[in-house]
């Protein structure tokens, strides 16, 4: 089938190193001594362990429950005993621990009851649930739960479903062998994805350095009479990057900042994902094993079907590494990383183990200054200016790195590959990105703290205001009550002497004195004030002799004597009118 292909800018052609491992069929790896199954193997929530040490588990039994929608279950890769649910080093450059279920195989490899699902008869939601429960995640690298990507995007019609068999990283051949040997089931999986997503077109992209895989896939597509196009794409790293493959096959450019390609009506799945999804649907098999290339500095490079959780060191031994091997590289040489130690387990996204030595991967020459040759910009598949981002990352001017779109960088490593100054550019960009993230986290934390503090202040002020208001209200109520009492009292006292005179004008006023100066309100007010003054006066008078109130007659007499003597001795004036001497005034 002839098809118009598009090009993406940039890209590099490193030596492919695929021939070492792609000439032998996939072999079954032997049962390892123990399995360390990390619970967090996909993007999204970390599955919760549902087994304990000492439990007996069957092959395919769920041991980790999906945590939320974007998460996928984890299963026991074989039957045996759970030795431990604890922290172990995970296959990540950080070397950090994560929660793992350690299983000792019993050698019986006894399956749990498997329940296939008829995806055509079942509701899509049930199929998604089934895939999630079977732990199906993207096997191409990122490990995004497959059901999440199969859920149709709202409002955007699905134009193309793209199946990624490009496998552009050097050394890796696991997808190549999968397509050669299991093309039928891969195509069944693709057909199921097609049924769920209803795209207008299905395109299967395979780099043209894999003619056997292309032929096998074409044969399987023809045999199943599916209208899928198997397209040979030019071999150019990173043609297997999702956004690059979309560009090559459809001409669409999905911006780096756009998180879901479905927003542009296109969705990409790895061939391995299609295969395991089909195994899950048609056979009820959860994702407990995968195909893995073991290559590099080894005597017998080959692809193996391995159980998830197998320690990498045990696998590497199968390929007989040369004695000068000094590390294990997980993934390809362009984007992979050296694992912290050989005990780390294979996870769902482990596609390749490469025995590392200095002959295959010579130590890097020392970093020279950038000479702005622009080679990095010429090979960048996202058309960034890596050397500009490098200057600003180096200067820790992270705002500028963002102006130069550092977050569109997919860390493919093309820039570092071609740099004549041997600058580890990707490393600088990772550093800048993590610094920016850290600062954003700090800023968010600070913002939250500030919000909390401001709210606390606001709350305290509000409480203070409330209290003051309450007090004021209480005081006002008290005053009003007293005023009312006083007014009543005043009215009573004034009513007695002029009982008939006061009432008569009030009655007569509307009749013959229309402009009478008697204002009842004012009168009441005046009476209140007078009453208050009278009351205050009475209070003062009542208060003055307070400390002599409850004295015995003897004491009163003694006090009177003392008073008399004081007056006699002119110690105190009977009338305290004399001003204090000037000298006693405070300066």
């Amino acid at each position, binding site marked *: 089938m002839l098809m118009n292909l598009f090009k993406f800018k940039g890209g*590099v052609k*490193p030596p492919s190193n695929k021939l070492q491992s792609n000439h032998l069929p996939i072999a079954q790896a032997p049962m390892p001594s123990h399995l360390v199954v990390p619970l967090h193997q996909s993007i999204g929530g970390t599955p919760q362990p549902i087994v304990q040490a000492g439990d007996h588990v069957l092959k395919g039994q769920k041991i980790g429950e999906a945590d939320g929608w974007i998460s996928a279950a984890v299963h026991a890769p074989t039957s045996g005993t759970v030795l431990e649910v604890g922290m172990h080093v995970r296959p990540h450059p950080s070397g950090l621990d994560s929660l793992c279920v350690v299983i000792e195989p019993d050698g019986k490899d006894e399956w749990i009851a498997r329940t296939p699902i008829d995806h055509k008869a079942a509701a899509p939601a049930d199929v998604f649930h089934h895939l999630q429960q079977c732990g199906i995640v993207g096997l191409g690298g990122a490990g995004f739960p497959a059901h999440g990507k199969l859920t149709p995007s709202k409002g955007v019609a699905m134009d193309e479903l793209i199946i990624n068999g490009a496998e552009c990283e050097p050394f890796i051949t696991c997808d190549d062998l999968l397509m050669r040997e299991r093309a039928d089931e891969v195509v069944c999986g693709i057909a199921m994805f097609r049924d769920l997503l209803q795209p207008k077109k299905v395109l299967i992209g395979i780099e043209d350095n894999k003619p056997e895989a292309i032929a096998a896939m074409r044969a399987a597509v023809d045999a199943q009479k599916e209208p899928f196009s198997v397209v040979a794409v030019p071999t150019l790293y990173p043609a297997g990057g999702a956004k690059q493959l979309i560009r090559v096959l459809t001409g669409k450019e999905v911006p780096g900042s756009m998180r879901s390609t479905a927003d542009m009506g296109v969705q990409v799945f790895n061939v391995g994902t299609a295969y395991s999804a089909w195994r899950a649907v048609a056979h009820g098999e959860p994702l407990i094993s995968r195909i893995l290339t073991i290559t590099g500095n080894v005597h017998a490079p080959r692809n193996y079907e391995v159980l998830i959780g197998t320690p990498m060191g045990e696998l590497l031994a199968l390929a007989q590494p040369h004695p000068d091997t000094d590390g294990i590289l997980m993934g390809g040489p362009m984007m992979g*990383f050296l694992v912290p130690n050989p005990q780390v387990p294979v996870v769902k996204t482990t596609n390749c183990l490469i025995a590392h030595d200095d002959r295959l*991967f010579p130590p890097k020459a*020392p970093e020279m200054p950038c*000479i702005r040759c622009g080679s990095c910009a010429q090979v960048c598949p*996202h058309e960034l200016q890596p050397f500009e981002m490098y200057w600003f990352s180096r200067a820790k001017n992270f705002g500028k790195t963002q102006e130069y779109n550092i977050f569109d960088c997919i860390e493919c490593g093309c820039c570092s590959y071609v740099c004549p100054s041997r600058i580890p550019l990707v490393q600088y960009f990772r550093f800048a990105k993590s610094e920016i993230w850290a600062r954003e986290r700090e800023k968010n934390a600070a913002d939250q703290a500030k919000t909390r503090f401001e709210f606390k202040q606001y709350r305290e002020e509000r409480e203070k205001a409330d209290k003051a208001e309450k007090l004021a209200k209480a005081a006002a109520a008290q005053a009003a009550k007293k005023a009312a009492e006083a007014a009543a009292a005043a009215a009573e006292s004034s009513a007695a002497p002029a009982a008939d005179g006061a009432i008569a004008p009030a009655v007569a006023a509307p009749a013959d004195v229309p402009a009478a100066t008697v204002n009842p309100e004012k009168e009441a007010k005046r009476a209140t004030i007078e009453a208050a003054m009278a009351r205050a006066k009475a209070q003062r008078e009542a208060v003055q002799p307070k400390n002599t109130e409850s004295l015995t007659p003897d004491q009163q007499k003694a006090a009177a004597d003392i008073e008399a003597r004081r007056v006699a001795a002119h110690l105190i004036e009977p009338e305290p009118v004399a001003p204090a001497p000037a000298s006693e005034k405070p300066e």
Partner: protein
Amino acid sequence: MFAPAPFLLKDVSVSQVMIQVCVALIPGIAAYASLVGPAILVQIVIATLSALLAEAVMLKLRGKSMAMFLTDGSAIVTAWLIALTFPPLAPWWLVVTGTVFAIIVAKHLYGGLGQNPFNPAMVAFAVCIVAFPALMSQWPSVGLQLGLIEQMNIILGWAPRVDALSGATPLDAMKTALKLGEGSFDVATLLANQDIYGNFAGRGWEWVAAGYLLGGLWLWQRKLITWHVPVSFIASMTVLSGALWLYNPSQFASPLFHLLSGGAMLGAFFIATDPVSGCTTPRGKLIFGAGAGLLAYIIRVFGGYPDGVAFAVLLMNLSAPLIDLLTQPPIFGMKDKS
């Protein structure tokens, strides 16, 4: 053991880049040597040695690794460009002064390799032509045939600088004749003098320019330079000189004359393409090359100096950061949005 991805690296290095630039200069140097004799090779040796010495001293003073930077070849490229742009029989100390100034001031005082805002070789040329205008304008007369020993004696100052040494380049001769003649000379009559002007632009000089063109094309084929700068440099010089030539062919020489004389080809392929001091974006490179070509023509035809490439490149170096800033290309997926 910590090593970041990628683990595979292309077999490239700064010194490989610089060596290839030197290799690309060889055809031009060969043509030049056949024109003026072995003196140019002597000047190249003098410039190279003084550049390496100045580089070593500066690296030592700055506490940088000698093994890493002395072998990177960047000082050698600078030295060769200086030797090729200075008069071939200039006294040794002139070349040494220019080279040492380029390495110490134009390169290391700005931060060394990769940090210099100006092309060091062009800084050397500009400084020397301002400080020693007479010596920088004395080119061996046409037909002066001297052996290696005689040329060495002149360069080293052991022989008197005779009149035959104070000729002008064909480009300079043409300008002077047209200016002094005040209309009495026309280009066609001048060009008829095959002894000076050869077939197009200067006897022998045409071959030197062709040599640089050949080397430049090889650099392009090796992907060490892109097409943008040379093409826009040549195009802008052609358009401007062509327009004036069509306007008044008796007073303005043809584009071919201008492209094949002076430092036009060397400038277009080897000097304006210097990545450190030039533009980096594709559109920026086009502007940079076009600007350098226009300015070089204007300075060499209307200005007081024999050629304008050095000042043109320096002026464009000055504007390169701004041009780069304003010509950032749209990135993947954002093309219709910007």
